[in-house]
């Protein structure tokens, strides 16, 4: 990407890149959009910046739809993916439950629904542990809807497809201001590899 100062040096009133991105995503109010369009008809420097925002936007859209990210998502993303015809492999967990899971080569997205009572929690972390209980990764302060009854984890399908048969424990933890943790739910994934490939790793 072009350093901003170089790209914007020819413009006396450069439009903020974030505004240009909102313009590209059609998120601006009509009056602000008009002003941006008038400016873009007069200013090549901001036009160049807009092209960079379009490239960034395209890259993020490709990445978001690739299924390669481990990220907490909302229900409407799952519903939209299903509506768009994507193959979404979903597993639902109750607290304390062990679920045997896998992923096929055709699956586009891999989703785990982790049920938990999160009412009253101000901060929730999602911790991933190996079968020995050693924490391997922590997602700190994940977005939660307190009365949603759980969390939707969009697991990396790329990771899942490459993973050997193994077990993983996920823990939802409420964390208070002093850092004290309270277990909201523990969920054990017994993953069985069904896609041929090289041997994977051991924890």
């Amino acid at each position, binding site marked *: 990407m*072009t*350093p901003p100062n170089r790209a914007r040096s020819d413009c006396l009133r450069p439009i903020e890149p974030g505004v240009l991105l909102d313009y590209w995503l059609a998120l601006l109010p009509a009056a602000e959009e008009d002003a941006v369009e008038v400016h873009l008809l007069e200013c090549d420097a901001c036009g160049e910046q807009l092209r960079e925002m379009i490239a*960034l936007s395209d*890259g993020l859209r490709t*990445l978001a739809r690739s299924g390669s990210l481990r990220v907490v998502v909302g229900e409407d993303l799952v519903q939209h993916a299903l509506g768009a015809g994507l193959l979404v492999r979903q597993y639902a967990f109750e607290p304390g439950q062990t679920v045997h899971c896998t992923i096929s080569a055709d699956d586009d997205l891999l989703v785990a629904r982790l049920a938990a009572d999160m009412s009253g929690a101000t901060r929730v972390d999602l911790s991933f542990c190996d079968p020995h209980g050693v924490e391997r990764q922590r997602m*700190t302060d994940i977005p939660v809807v307190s009365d949603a009854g759980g969390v939707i984890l969009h697991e990396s399908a790329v990771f899942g497809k490459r993973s050997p048969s193994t077990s993983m424990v996920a823990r939802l933890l409420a964390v208070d201001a002093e850092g004290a943790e309270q277990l909201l739910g523990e969920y054990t994934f017994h993953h069985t590899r069904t896609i041929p490939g090289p041997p994977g790793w051991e924890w």
Partner: protein
Amino acid sequence: MGPRIRLYGLRHLRSAAAADDLVQQVLVKMLEALRAGRLRDADKLAHFVLGTCRMTVLDQRRSARRQEQLLEEFGGVLVPAQREMPPLDADRLARCVQTLRERERTVVVMTFFDERTAAESGRSLGITEANVRVIRHRALRQLRTCMEAGS
């Protein structure tokens, strides 16, 4: 009168769209003439219309010739070369997204997966619309900085 003018137009302009345009232009001029009292004798209506058709077609042809000449002379400048989008390092972008905080990564994914508005993402995540905007702007600023650091 309209269909007749259109036939004239088809004959001389060889284009249905141009003939339709001619009908409109000639009828407008005819109405203006009638309202101005310049066309009182009904017997002269056809002559008036024909003359108007001829003048209008001549104007159109002159205008078309001028356009062709201008395009021939300046076409290369008037039609800008297609600008390529700047290249983006997708692997780096993926690494940059991994450096975001959880809420930021969630908002970015929710926004770009289906170009969700802040209100829609907020409803789904239990965050206010304004907060989604703040998180998204902060995340995108960090992503731009991360990408620029690698370029």
